[in-house]
């Protein structure tokens, strides 16, 4: 326990100190974590303890990252990305692999080793690439899409690589080290190939089927319990369960998590899952970067600095060139291709695993592996720097060609114009009106039965308590134009208006008010406009009543319109009073007091006949009658 606390202290302390500094220096958080790792690592301060254990734990951050990405990828989107995944991704793995192999061959490695090194180093770091692109705001655009497609195929390619690499063995295998952590947990490795294949399909089927038919009812059940921590626990449970299952059948846990994410991307719990799991992703990824930093073999770096530097620069340059060429070939604009190629130029975390594995399989020597591991780690550390370099070059290019089209693409199709919190009897009508007029809205509702029903009618509704700021942010509140609060709960409505106003000063906030008092309360808390939920419908029923009592339709309509105007004026007039007499109003007599005031105002301003006073031609008729009499007399 003491050891655990010390370790936590070391890792958290290093992160908290170095990451903000790195960010302030414009180096990005990834480099901050890596530097923190180097400092506390076994070759510097030596505070990291059992680094291998921590690393395994931290790798779970990558699993969570892929799960979260999966949540953002609709199955249809995955299909749209098939060109990026199989075309660009496949070309990258093969092209880069062969290019590095050729270079290795030129440096004097035998072809088997050269090919193994090439394929291993062709992999990029999912964690670093995505984190970096995220920080640069590029992940949602075409650049992010292309990079992600390539990364996804690399994840897939790891599976055959494990089968392929042992075939390149030239030396004797080291059976003790064949456990590379990746396929390491596989319980089916001893089975014949067909059985292994079968178990893989069964596992994938279980993830898809479970996500479709099992997870949603379970989540619904949990949601009804309204215990947030259990929801978080259930979300983590899914990710862990899928990762374990994948490990059992020998697939990449990250890939499995991605698949689970995609399956759940269309569920109503998507936003809630994202919000709940997000913090774990950040922390674990940070931990992961720290362990990578800590793993840099400083003595090795110190003993062969030039060789290593040459290797890193050569590796990154080669990866950059191949990727740039391929991206251009696949139709990316120059800038986009540069961004993708820069982002993907480092070696990946799979390289660590695969290098250990290749040594174990007797393909390459331990010394070469150590050198390459160090090179990969350093190349990861160089990635944020390379991105900064890319930005400089891109800025120069922009300056040279002033009318470059910004690389934002049309990926923001999911950005809502409006967020509607609460999609019950009230929110639905408002929402329907807005969507009928072409506005996109994201809907949040916490009544699981309501969501059920709406989804059956094909509406996109997300489960979640909208008063939570993080969920609001997930829903896009910092980019949306408007928030419509249509909750069924007085207190929560006020709470949400207050929270949203503080967090998003520019957001237009409209709110459904319970009654007059609630309406004042909401305005005082920052709502831009409110509507008393029963006011318009009561007025409409009153209009019908007037018609049934014999008023012509137009007169009844005008009477209601007149009354509405009068009431809204009274509402504004009583508003300052409400503020002063808050304490009094909150006392028991408030309702009667307000009503008294209102009735007085009604009588004072709305004399009977006022509403129908229009079109009263009495005075004109009188004059015409006099005129006619005069004419008759003449």
């Amino acid at each position, binding site marked *: 326990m003491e050891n655990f606390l010390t370790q936590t202290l070391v890792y958290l302390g290093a992160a908290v100190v170095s990451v903000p500094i790195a960010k302030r220096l414009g180096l990005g958080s990834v480099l901050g974590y890596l530097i923190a790792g180097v400092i506390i690592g076994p070759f510097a301060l030596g505070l990291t303890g059992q680094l291998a254990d921590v690393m395994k734990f931290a790798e779970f951050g990558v699993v969570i990252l892929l799960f979260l990405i999966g949540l953002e990828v609709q199955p249809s989107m995955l299909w749209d990305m098939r060109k990026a995944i199989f075309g660009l991704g496949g070309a990258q793995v093969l092209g880069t692999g062969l290019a590095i192999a050729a270079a290795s061959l030129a440096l004097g490695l035998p072809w088997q080793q050269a090919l193994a090194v090439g394929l291993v180093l062709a992999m990029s770091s999912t964690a670093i690439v995505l984190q970096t692109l995220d920080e640069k705001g590029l992940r949602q655009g075409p650049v992010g899409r292309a990079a992600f497609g390539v990364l996804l195929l690399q994840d897939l390619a790891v599976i055959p690589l494990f089968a392929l690499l042992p075939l390149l063995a030239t030396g004797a295998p080291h059976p003790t080290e064949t456990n590379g952590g990746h396929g390491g947990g596989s319980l089916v490795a001893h089975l014949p190939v067909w059985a292994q294949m079968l178990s893989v399909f069964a596992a994938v089927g279980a993830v898809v089927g479970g996500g479709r038919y099992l997870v949603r009812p379970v989540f619904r059940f949990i949601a009804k319990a309204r215990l947030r921590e259990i929801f978080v626990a259930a979300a983590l449970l899914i990710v862990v369960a899928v990762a374990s299952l994948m490990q059992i059948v020998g697939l990449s846990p990250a890939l499995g998590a991605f698949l689970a994410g995609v399956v759940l991307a269309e569920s109503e719990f998507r936003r809630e899952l994202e919000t709940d799991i997000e913090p774990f992703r950040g922390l674990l990824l940070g931990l992961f970067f720290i362990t990578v930093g800590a793993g840099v073999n400083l003595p090795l770096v110190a003993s062969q600095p030039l060789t290593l530097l040459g290797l890193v620069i050569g590796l990154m340059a080669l990866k950059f060139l191949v990727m740039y060429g391929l991206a251009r070939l696949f139709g990316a604009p120059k800038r986009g291709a540069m961004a993708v190629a820069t982002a993907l130029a480092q070696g990946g975390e799979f390289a660590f695993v695969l290098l250990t594995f290749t040594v174990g399989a007797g393909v390459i020597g331990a010394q070469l592996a150590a050198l390459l591991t160090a090179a990969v780690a350093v190349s990861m550390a160089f990635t944020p720097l390379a991105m900064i370099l890319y930005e400089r070059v891109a800025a120069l290019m922009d300056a040279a060609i002033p009318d470059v089209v910004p690389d934002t693409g049309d990926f923001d199709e999911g950005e809502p114009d409006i967020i509607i919190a609460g999609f019950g009897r009230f929110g639905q009508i408002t929402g329907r009106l807005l969507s009928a007029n072409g506005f996109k809205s994201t809907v949040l509702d916490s009544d699981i039965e309501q969501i059920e029903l709406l989804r059956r009618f094909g509406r996109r509704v997300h489960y979640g308590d909208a008063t939570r700021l993080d969920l609001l942010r997930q829903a896009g509140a910092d980019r949306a134009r408007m928030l419509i609060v249509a909750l069924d709960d007085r207190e929560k409505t006020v709470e949400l208006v207050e929270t949203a106003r503080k967090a998003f000063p520019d957001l237009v906030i409209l709110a459904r008010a319970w009654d007059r008092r609630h309406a004042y309360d909401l305005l005082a808390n920052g709502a831009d406009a409110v509507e008393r939920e029963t006011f318009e419908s009561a007025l409409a029923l009153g209009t019908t009543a007037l018609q049934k009592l014999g008023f*012509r*339709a*137009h*007169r*009844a*309509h*005008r009477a209601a319109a007149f009354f509405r105007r009068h009431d809204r004026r009274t509402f504004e007039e009583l508003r300052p009073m409400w503020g002063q007499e808050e304490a009094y109003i909150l006392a028991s007599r408030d309702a009667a007091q307000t009503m008294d005031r209102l009735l007085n105002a009604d009588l004072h301003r709305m004399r009977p006949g006022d509403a*129908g006073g*229009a*079109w*009263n*031609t009495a005075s*004109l*008729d009188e004059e*015409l*009658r006099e*005129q*006619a009499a005069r*004419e008759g007399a003449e």
Partner: protein
Amino acid sequence: MTDASTGPVTPSTSGVLLVLAHPALERSRANRALAKAAKGLSGVTFKDLYEVYPDFVVDIEAEQAALLAHDVVALQFPLYWYSTPSLMKEWLDLVWLHGFAYGEGGEALKGKRLFVACTTGASAKAYHAHGYNRFSMDEFLRPLEQTAHLCGMGWETPFVVHGASVKDDDALKAEAERYKARLASLLPALSTSGKTEA
């Protein structure tokens, strides 16, 4: 918007579409008397605009279909500031569209007839070059006459009740009978059935 070809198909056109606009019919003795007389006629479809569209949101498709289904369009209204009440103007603006009523492809009303029935507060004498209104009723109704012309419609001699608010019940009854006869004369000899709306 909607042109004749996409509007609801009507097997045959017949009768008079009587469009009435009075924002306070409950106060108008003259217009009520006229409307009551018209309602007694078969072959007249009665449409009370302020009753059907109290919020001024005119249903364009429904109104165009109604126009298509009749041979004669009759407009009944009190003269307000030498023009129609605002909702009737709104109705004209929204329904008698380019491409439907006039202009290229706008032949929906061609061959139909436009008949105006109008009440005024002032006496007939006022609507004269030497009266205080300085112009004749024919001149004040020119915008509608030209509307009919542009739409290829025939222009029927307008029916006008002057001094409406001064007339006693008997006088109004006589005017209503005259109105009824005028409307009947516009109907084809063998009218089928009387339709009433609102």
